[in-house]
């Protein structure tokens, strides 16, 4: 039997020995996926810790398999069989990696449903620290036979590395809580690894085995750290459209925004994984007002759910009460998280402008999954007729479309009356290339329009709805490349079939 076949043989035996645990693990993974994808939409809160339980099962199965072939005894059963130590070590690592791969596959399934939302799956993942613990324990066990001094050195080194990476290299100040949490996890992992080493020493290993195990352990240890580094936005202090939404959630100084004063709303902001793990970074109190200079209103917190990467982040009862006070329906279907920040006229390129862009991310659910579209609100006001300002008040995400409620307000008295909504140019315009794409079927209830605008928009303004029907992901994805340009909204009516129509309809001077 070749070395490879021996590894597979031992691996197969381990799978067979732990089939029940693996079956439960698979079931839990499916449950996690269902919960993350909201099938059904409202799962009982009792399922909230399912992500942790899943991770726990993975660790349990790993420990079960690893300890099944005892390495503390010179005369362990595997040691008296024609098996090299490297075969046993490799099969154990293969087992651990297969669990990780299953978890990763589940994550990918979820992620594929969130096109254009490249939430990394390393940094916000509760399973990795735990599995890292086991793998690191194995790696350390191969190296530290009876040498607690060496363990101490490894602990100090690893901890130092974690501290350097978490606190010095790429830690925005707002994610201090996450830093502390990660450090705690690291310390816990090292402590548990040291415990494992004392109980479980691997002997009779070759240099190759030790090197491979050490390498795997180090990689496993660094994975979450790299994951955090690669998590878009975790390192971002300034807004960058290339970053995903969670970066903004991490870095926005929400409580210091001057334009927002008045009522208050407490909003939890978190990072997490779609399988339910979540760490709340902050719970700022947002000042809420509805004056023209800058309106903050709370919509459904859907974006935050995705920005946080994960588990349902439902408004608290107090949030819901405040939402009601603000006239916002707290039970907007499928839109559980979201904060919509309009653009103050005087701060188009400032802080509030950045916030607005964050707020205007929308998730359009299509038949193939959930799509992401960014619509920079800043450009909405540019596209609008001078003298008016458009504000997106709320979003309603339905199965096949998203309805964006836009409030059009008069900024100055010296404006041209707008007899109808048709005066607006709802276009997608790339200013850098002078290209306009798509403008279709803005649906406004004429009766509403007429009654609300007896004199055009000379008065206070109008609120109307834009319906954005589902398009193909590629097209919606195409929108992403237009971000930070002069852009408005684009719709694709169902009857138009798949794809966007590309006809220049409006341009902006």
């Amino acid at each position: 039997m070749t070395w490879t076949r021996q590894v597979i043989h031992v691996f197969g035996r381990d799978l067979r020995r732990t089939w029940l645990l693996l079956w439960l693990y698979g079931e839990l993974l499916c449950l996690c996926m269902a919960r993350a994808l909201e099938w059904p939409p409202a799962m009982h809160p009792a399922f909230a810790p399912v992500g942790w339980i899943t991770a726990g099962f993975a660790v349990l199965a790993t420990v079960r398999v690893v300890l099944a072939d005892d390495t503390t005894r010179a005369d362990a059963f595997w040691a008296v069989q024609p098996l090299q130590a490297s075969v046993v070590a490799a099969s154990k690592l293969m087992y651990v990696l297969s669990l990780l791969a299953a978890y990763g596959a589940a994550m990918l399934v979820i992620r594929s449903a969130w096109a254009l939302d490249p939430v990394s799956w390393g940094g916000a993942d509760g399973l990795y620290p735990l599995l890292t613990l086991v793998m690191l324990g194995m790696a350390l066990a191969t190296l530290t036979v009876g040498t607690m001094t060496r363990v101490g050195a490894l602990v100090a080194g690893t901890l130092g590395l974690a501290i350097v990476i978490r606190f010095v290299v790429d830690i925005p100040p707002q994610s201090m809580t996450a830093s502390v949490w990660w450090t705690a996890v690291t310390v816990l992992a090292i402590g548990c690894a040291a415990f494992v080493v004392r109980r479980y020493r691997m002997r009779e290993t070759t240099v190759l085995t030790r090197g491979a195990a050490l390498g795997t352990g180090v990689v496993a240890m660094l994975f979450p750290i790299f994951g955090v580094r690669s998590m878009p936005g975790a390192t971002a202090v300034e807004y960058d459209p290339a970053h995903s939404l969670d970066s903004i959630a991490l870095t926005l100084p929400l409580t210091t925004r001057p334009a927002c004063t008045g009522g208050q709303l407490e909003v939890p902001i978190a990072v997490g994984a779609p399988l339910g793990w979540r760490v709340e970074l902050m719970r700022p109190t947002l000042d809420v007002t509805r004056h023209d200079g800058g309106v903050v209103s709370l919509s459904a917190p859907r974006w935050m759910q995705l920005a946080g990467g994960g588990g349902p982040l439902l408004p608290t009862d107090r949030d819901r009460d405040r939402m009601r006070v603000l006239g916002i329906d707290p039970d907007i279907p499928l839109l559980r998280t979201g904060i919509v920040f309009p653009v103050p006229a005087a701060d188009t390129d400032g802080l509030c402008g950045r916030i607005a862009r964050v707020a205007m991310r929308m998730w359009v659910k299509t038949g193939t999954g959930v799509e992401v579209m960014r619509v920079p609100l800043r450009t909405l006001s540019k596209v609008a007729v001078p003298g008016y300002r458009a504000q997106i008040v709320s979003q309603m995400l339905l199965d096949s479309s998203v309805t964006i409620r836009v409030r059009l307000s008069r900024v100055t008295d010296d404006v041209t009356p707008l007899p109808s909504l048709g005066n607006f140019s709802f276009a997608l315009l790339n200013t850098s290339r002078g290209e306009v794409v798509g403008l279709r079927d803005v649906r406004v209830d004429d009766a509403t329009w007429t009654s609300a605008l007896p004199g055009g928009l000379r008065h206070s303004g109008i609120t109307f709805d834009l319906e954005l029907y589902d398009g193909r992901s590629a097209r919606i994805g195409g929108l992403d490349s237009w971000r930070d340009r002069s852009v408005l909204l684009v719709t694709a009516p169902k009857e138009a079939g798949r794809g966007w129509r590309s006809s220049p309809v409006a341009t902006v001077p």
Partner: protein
Amino acid sequence: MTRVVVEGVSYRYDGRGDALHDVSIEAPSGAILGLLGANGAGKTTLLQCCAGLREPMRGRVLVDGVSSARRALIVSGDVGYVAESVRLPSDMTLAHLEWWIAPLHRRWDAALATSLRERFGLDASRKLTTLSRGEYMKAALLCALAAQPRVLIMDEPFAGIDVVTKDEILRGLLATAGTSGTTMLLASHDIAEIESVLSHVAIITVGRVRVSGSMESVRERYRQVTMVGGDALLDAFAGEQRWLEVERAGRMLRIVADGERTPLDAGMLQRRFAGADSITVEDLSLRELFSSVVRGTRADSIRAEAA
């Protein structure tokens, strides 16, 4: 046919004294070597060194000239190891265990495995945890024998096993050794049971080999002399040299002598000690020899400490 040579093996555990000190023994091809020793004498350590499960501090173990270090001979399938302390995967059935280990062994004989299972009366569908102690050891031996190693090392395979089961296992071992020519190293406290199957023996005390050789040579070499007579005569005989063991009860003196140092012949002794009422020279059983060696070693160490 395989020859096992242990050359000057020493081993030391951390924080403890020498477990083995300059141990040298030899088992010719096809031999069944019994390794005898009191608890803590170093038998298990020596067998683990032989199997390559432990690396000697000094010395080496050769099987047909090939070193067993780093489990090399276990990995190659040339050495099998069965020990009371080796725990079989408890969550497996015997059939499952055979399924797992059979592909790992180059010379696995499925027919022999079936034959041994029937001979030992084992149910392959039973989980190993449900087996009795005897059945457990039988299962372990089955796995080791069916793999057909050239050298089979067994450490206390009969501990806690009833006489009938021991007999079955011994017969199984003999049958296998007879057909395959496997060289066996066997450590056991059941000296009386294994004496009849051993071709060679080594007695080890406090990490040192005191007696080793073929059974015939050991029986030839070590004799016990019983003398009945007057005090002066007994004192003279007892003090003549350092015997392996000396016991005195009234007018009777019993000594165990190493014939290599002092050739013992009843006629010669009767001529030298003509005043003795009786002098008899007898062979020792392995059990008696072992006891004498162990007691003699203890007496030596006590004398050494007193000095």
